[in-house]
């Protein structure tokens, strides 16, 4: 594994954040399976090293834009379980007072400008945030998360062109999990994804998205260069989603084999890999890691219970927030 952050606390925090994402998703999936969650949701499990590797290279002042598969980005950027589960259940104490739900969680306090239910819908927003930073002389960086499927959206090419022309501090992070919905990436993406960014003169990287240290190391460098006026950058992160496209996508052998899923889970799991690295390096013992896992599990269980009991927004809120004051 490559070296990302350099002190023990940082490593443990990265591990913790990845486990928090996995645990959040397991609980969210359970809420769906027990018919307690309204609607559908898209699980991030399997892709944790991408969100954590990147977000651990950012400060609260740096912004991200997220996707329909957004719980991982949200947790990685610092969100709390309680407000997140409340949002998933449509409760008043949710990050968006129940108005947004899973596909629209935003967490202003940590610089998360929001998930988006329109594939590619946040590419303009992320680039605009970077434009604002440049115009106002601020040194924050914006990371735009999107999937391999989203690279088919024309908007990406319009905004990359402008970002490159104007040297904007934005990092396009393409989470290539091999599928867009029920279709393999190679069937919907011609040529090379990174070459598209390179065509605009944007420096582009393709890396193993299951290696949290590699992701973190690269992102730290690019963030520093963005702050130095050298943006934009493009990263394609090779990763995998463990669940179906959404929680209801259960019988999926017609588009993806069980063997392939097993291979990724058994041989490339980002959490398992990082955990054994931590132990090998003597950064944490198995017992310490188990204790951390248990604590996170407890946190999640409590947050779910809290959210289930929490109150729904008052009916009078329905026409609040249509316009800003």
């Amino acid at each position, binding site marked *: 594994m490559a070296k990302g952050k350099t002190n023990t606390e940082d490593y443990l925090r990265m591990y913790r954040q990845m486990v928090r994402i996995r645990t959040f998703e397991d609980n969210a999936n359970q809420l769906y399976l027990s018919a307690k969650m309204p609607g559908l949701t898209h699980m991030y499990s399997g892709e944790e090293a991408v969100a954590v590797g990147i977000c651990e290279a950012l400060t609260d002042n740096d912004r991200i834009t997220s996707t329909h598969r957004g719980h991982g980005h949200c947790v990685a950027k610092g969100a709390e379980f309680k407000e997140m589960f409340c949002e998933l259940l*449509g409760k008043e104490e949710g990050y968006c007072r129940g108005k947004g739900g899973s596909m629209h969680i935003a967490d202003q306090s940590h610089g998360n400008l929001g998930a*988006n*239910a329109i594939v590619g*819908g946040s590419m303009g927003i992320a680039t605009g945030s970077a434009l604002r930073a440049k115009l106002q002389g601020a040194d924050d960086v914006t990371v735009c998360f999107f999937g391999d499927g989203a690279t088919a*959206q*024309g908007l990406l090419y319009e905004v990359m062109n402008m970002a490159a022309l104007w040297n904007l501090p934005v990092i396009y992070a393409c989470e290539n999990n091999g599928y867009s*919905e029920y279709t393999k990436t190679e069937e*919907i993406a011609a040529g090379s994804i990174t070459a598209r960014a390179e065509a605009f003169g944007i420096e582009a990287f393709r890396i193993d998205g299951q290696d949290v240290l590699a992701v973190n190391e690269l992102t730290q460098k690019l963030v520093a260069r963005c702050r130095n006026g050298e943006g934009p950058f493009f990263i394609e992160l090779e990763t995998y989603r463990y669940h179906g496209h959404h929680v209801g996508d259960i019988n999926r052998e017609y588009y993806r084999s069980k063997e392939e899923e097993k291979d990724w889970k058994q041989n490339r799991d980002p959490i398992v890999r990082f955990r054994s690295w931590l132990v090998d390096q003597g950064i944490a013992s198995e017992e310490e890691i188990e204790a951390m896992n248990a604590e996170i599990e407890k946190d999640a269980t409590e947050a779910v219970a809290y959210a289930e009991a929490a109150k*729904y927004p008052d009916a009078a809120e329905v026409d609040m927030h249509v316009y800003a004051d």
Partner: protein
Amino acid sequence: MREITLSQAVNEAIAEEMRRDPTVFLLGEDVAEAGTPFKVLSGLVEEFGTERIIDTPIAEPGFVGLAVGAAMTGARPIVDLMFGDFIYLVMDQLCNQAAKQHYMSGGKLSVPMVLRTNLGATRRSAAQHSQSLQALVAHIPGLKVAMPSSAYEAKGLMKTAIRDNNPVVIFEDKLMYQDKAPVPEEEYLIPFGEANVKREGRDITLIATSSMVQVAEKAAETLAAEGISAEVIDPRTIVPLDEATLLASVRKTSRAIVIDEGHQSYGVTAEIASRLNEKAFYHLDAPVLRMGAMDVPVPFSPALEDITVPTPEGVVANARKLCAGEMINAA
């Protein structure tokens, strides 16, 4: 008569027209093996192959543009737009390109394409997957707009749409895909611009589209028990609109409520209500009422979402007031 689901009805209509006319093909996201997320098109790729049931990248303006070009040069494409909310992405191709070619070319070019998509809230899908945007396209001259209210309409209107020489947008209610209705085995088409009087009545006319037809019918049941006789009319296409049938009904009942799931302001209900006011004013005993979705983005929380759409109870309450001579919304 056999009963089939709305989903099967759409599937049958497309299959029949593809057998009948080799220039018909379909394109969209996950339409082939996956048969769309709602499974509406399952089985079509097995019969027609990937040359005619084409999976596209997630590039809506691109593939709608492709459909426009193919339609202008001799094919009859059907575009599958996964959610009605994505109409915003394709507005230029649909409204600047498809809608205007025939007129701009002095009648020389035409765009025989169908864009099938959906509408409907209360599925807990939040603000970007729940909208009912028919008014947006109905506003644009050159586009026809069909709004099936059951499996029967879905099949008959789809077949007519595919044979029409103009761009047609069809909105299916995504909550109705599994609803069954009697659909004949024999071939039939439903002409555009012919409203369907679903239920006859004397006291008030309920004009309802798509998802709202069921709401109006339920309301009519309740009203009947109270001695109010409601007529329920489904226009089936909002462009063209069967004004004659709507006007004849309102002249008879002298009261009307128009119900549609799009936002109420500047919406389908407003258009129909103003036509009734203009053309049946002297027959009216009460102002024509509009009932649309609340003028708010669709909220995710079930506690909020359900109050944004018209309900049978809401229609009943308004109908009662109109029939009692209470001026609703009077200043």
